[in-house]
């Protein structure tokens, strides 16, 4: 084969591959496009034999209706509250022990560490019945507090922070100790600032986990107005009949915070998954 025909074939190949790439992109995004298109159609144009792809009368009607006839704003607020509390408590509870595992030599450390790692093996679903009974006896059923508390102990988060804290040079700590700093000061002013990257990762992962949680809030919260967004959207069909355009508008509203969150933290989210995956 001479050089120019080889090059030509290579070029057609790469054009074909690019077309394939674009096709794959369109197919993969299609469900989301369809979600949006459905949400701006009138229900009578959705539930019809006269199928049309583009909305004939684009409208925000379903969005207004979702806000006025459902508790969707409450659900969003509840999810935000639950996720923010989970996130803050996760760091308060998990960062100190990650520091202890990384830097402090104390008796029983290894046993403790393996106990925490064994906690990763326990699927949350195994705990739902006893947890429900436990929260029932505390009188916390149907409260957002109950949705937060069992999610705060996050072994993977401890692992991520521990790996990161370990790499902070001992010399920095020692210098602070010589200056008379206490453990707490060192943790607060040396470890936390230098470990910021791993803490950000854990914050993001715990926020996403809490936001997406479904089974536990489904069980522990009974009032429509107290639902988190995941449970609210799942029950949309039940409360609103089957109005597909309205359901899709609800799904779009429910996803907006996540989309914004993703646009801001894209890099950290992907790195966080890769990190917890590779090291976990």
């Amino acid at each position: 084969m001479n050089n120019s025909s080889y090059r030509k074939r290579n070029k057609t190949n790469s054009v074909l591959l690019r077309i394939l790439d674009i096709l794959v992109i369109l197919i993969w995004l299609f469900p989301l496009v369809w979600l949006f298109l459905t949400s701006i159609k009138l229900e009578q144009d959705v539930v019809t034999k006269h199928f049309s792809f583009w909305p004939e009368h684009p409208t925000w009607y379903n969005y207004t209706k979702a806000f006025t006839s459902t508790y969707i704003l409450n659900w969003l607020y509840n999810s935000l509250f639950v996720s923010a509390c989970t996130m803050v408590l996760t760091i308060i509870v998990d960062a100190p022990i990650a520091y202890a595992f990384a830097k402090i030599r104390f008796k029983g450390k290894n046993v403790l560490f393996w106990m925490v790692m064994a906690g990763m093996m326990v699927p949350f679903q195994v705990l739902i019945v006893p947890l429900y009974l436990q929260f029932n006896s505390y009188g916390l059923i149907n409260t957002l507090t109950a949705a937060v508390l069992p999610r705060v102990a996050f072994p993977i988060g401890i692992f991520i922070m521990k790996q990161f804290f370990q790499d902070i040079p001992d010399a920095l700590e020692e210098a602070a100790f010589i200056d008379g700093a206490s453990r707490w000061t060192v943790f607060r002013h040396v470890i936390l600032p230098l470990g910021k990257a791993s803490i950000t990762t854990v914050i993001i992962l715990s926020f996403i986990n809490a936001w997406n949680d479904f089974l536990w809030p489904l069980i522990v919260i009974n009032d429509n107005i107290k639902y988190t967004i995941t449970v609210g959207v799942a029950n949309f069909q039940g409360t609103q009949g089957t109005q597909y355009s309205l359901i899709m508008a609800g799904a779009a509203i429910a996803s907006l915070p996540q989309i914004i969150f993703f646009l801001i933290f894209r890099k950290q989210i992907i790195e966080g998954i890769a990190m917890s995956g590779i090291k976990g």
Partner: protein
Amino acid sequence: MIPGNKDTRDGILFSLPFLIVFILFMVYPLLFGLYISFFKWNILSTPVFTGLQNYQDMFHDQKFYSSLLHTLEFVVITTPVLLVLGFAMALVVTGKSPLAPLLETVFFIPYIFSMTVVATLWAWLMQKDFGIFNQVIMLLGGRKVGWLTDEKYAMWSVCLATFWWTAGFNMVLFTAGIKQIPKEVYESAEMDGASYWQSMTHITIPLVAPTTVLCLILQVIASFNVFGQVYVMTGGGPAGSTRVLIQYIYETGFQYFRMGYSAAMSYVLFAIMLAVSIIQYVVLGKNKEV
């Protein structure tokens, strides 16, 4: 010079907040769940000790068997597909295409949506009369498919939605694995005249093996825990043909209030998952040494 003599005190103090939460909401419920699995209890009455009765009941419970079977079915279908799909996506994303960064974002995007949104969306796409899948099939002259209403297809439909939703997660893991392979390995293979296919089977696949093992273990655990998609898309139907074990545990506990029986089934599921994880660990661990 370092507060060495206070290390034990500090270690305990810094561990304490976590330990309290861990014991209260992980260790205690784990033991409490095991305890109540030996009781007959509907929350309102006083618990009655029945020994192993709950565990024996499972052997005669058709619904338990069928739910367990559906969970296993879901694990067996989704695990290999999601591994291959995630790997294929990672290959594309780490390849030479100028669109690679865009493709990476596009593949990952479904994963940022919550399960309930994905499930409601796919339930709409697959709706029998007005869903777009059937609309297109009808336009092409085909017949309506009962994606979620036909026992033959319902589980596959739920799996399909799951592929779209979570393949991007595995892609991220595989991409990280592939990026760790030194470029020189590929360059020298190329100089020796290796084709794309050869360098994939002889370099990429063997060198990402640790990532594959990790993905496999994570995926099997995640698939065993399936509940939400099924609950939202089919509600376990038609005729219970997609009811998975966690759904049955949920219904037993929170609709029929048979707390002891529900807890007992949770433990059986836990034991199965633990056994599968250990087997994977032993088998795959051995392979790695060879």
